């Protein structure tokens, strides 16, 4: 018995991804502001507190923008949408040089 040969097509869809250019790191954090953005998960304030201590130990004049400035980026769909829409503007407004975004698992 001869088995059939199948010519099969690609099952995926065309990628709609547009490449985002990454920026380089900040040159030292002294005198710079680091933002903390939280998804209200996984002990964020505890973790952020220790990270802030460690940043301050190395860069004594670093400043921080707390997560409550940005709202919850992982709440209800409406909450999430609003927080994400406002995020870039709030980063600029508060002069963030870098940001720690969310705690996941």
């Amino acid at each position, binding site marked *: 018995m001869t088995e059939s040969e199948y010519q099969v097509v690609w099952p995926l869809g065309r990628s709609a991804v547009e490449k985002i*250019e990454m920026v380089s790191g900040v040159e030292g954090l002294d005198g710079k502001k680091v933002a903390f953005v939280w998804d209200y998960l996984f002990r964020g304030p505890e973790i952020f507190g220790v990270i802030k201590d*460690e940043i301050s130990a190395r860069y004594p004049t670093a400043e921080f923008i707390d997560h409550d400035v940005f709202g919850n980026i992982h709440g209800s769909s409406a909450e999430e949408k609003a927080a994400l829409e406002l995020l870039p503007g709030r980063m600029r407004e508060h002069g963030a040089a870098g940001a720690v975004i969310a705690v996941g698992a």
Partner: protein
Amino acid sequence: MSRAVSRGLGIADVPIAVYPGVIPTDSEAVLEQKVREHLAPAVIASLTERAVAAKKIETAEPVPHEIVHSGDLESVQEFFSARGWTDGLPIIPPTRQRVQQALRFTSRDPDEVIGVLAPEFRESTVWNVAVNGVMAGCRPEYFPVLLAIADALADPQFRIQDAGSTPAWEPLVVISGPLVKELEFNFGTGVMRVGRQANSSIGRFVRMYFRNMAGLRIPPSDSDQGAIGYSFNVALAEDDDAVTSIGWPSYREDKGFAREDSIVTVRSVVTISAPIYSGGSTAAEHLATISEIFGQAIGPWFYLGLVFGAWHPLLVMNPSIARTIAADDADKDAVRRYLSENVKTAATSLERYAPQVGHTDFTIEQYKQAGRLPSVSLESDGPEQLIRTIPDPANLDLVVAGSPSRNQSRAYVQNHNQGVPTSRKVVLPPNWDELLEEQRDLKKGRE
């Protein structure tokens, strides 16, 4: 998951600082030590030491309609499996001819983009719905149902991007209308079991579509982070005869469609109750038992309904129960009201559980003070207060299906704002009757 989402967004190498362990299981002291010694240095390095690293994302992929492989059945299975394009079960080879057979069942352009599905951000098209339908073992005549499902999955309210979250919810398709019989869905004994082609292959198609269009794959990929999952749901079909004889509105009418329509609703299911056997000749007797076991199934998971502001449970009941309840002059809204008022769990249970899932700041009081707790929710102010876990009766779906000779119900718990029930009417081609007849003749000839 962060890496998968970042890739999908076009960021080749997002800096991620990894906590060495599982955050909810570490003590305060251990957490502090790990953050100080491991996480904080990684965060600082990410902030300060990154070189510009705009790697070009490789786009050398096949194009839609392209033949990607030729070979016998085994080689097709191996080729697709090696690329992560299958669910681990054998597929029907998606040849152009088979895809075209499905496409005859729509007048839509094969290249129509239905949506772009995260986290992999791929274009869902009429063409690739057909390809994945063929692979899942769907008959060509199921294609209008598959298109309606794909339309629902592309709706932003469904949030397919969250289908790889750790609770590992599964999509469930509910089908209601004349197509249930025309396409020979099982809606009676053994409903929700694998075994009937329409229910099984359409359920499999949805999971296949999550994999191939949204890119949700288990390891060795990283986009599906389900901690402990379960297998795909076969499609749930409503027993229209039972609903009609009882005098209740059909599921599709509950959803705002016409009696003569056929619809699909896609929703998430994060857990299913134990079988709920209820007895008695009054609505109250049945509903008392149903509310008790429904409440056990929802349990403290309800806290997520408060966090995310969405909650849409589903109750599937055997015709005998619906009939008994209806005979006691209770309509569907009365069932919803009763269950909304009586399905409860201890508020303390939510507060104890939420931090263990990850919501470390959750308290009932916080939601109360913020005015985000539905006013009907809390039964008392005491320490043992009970919270109603179906606060809005309008968000409870009811489907009559399953064995006509038993008295069982099952509660299907939905995953808050992820997989919100999303419905679409199934649109048939103008020559549907003729095409369906043709398929039936083909089937008979092959039997």
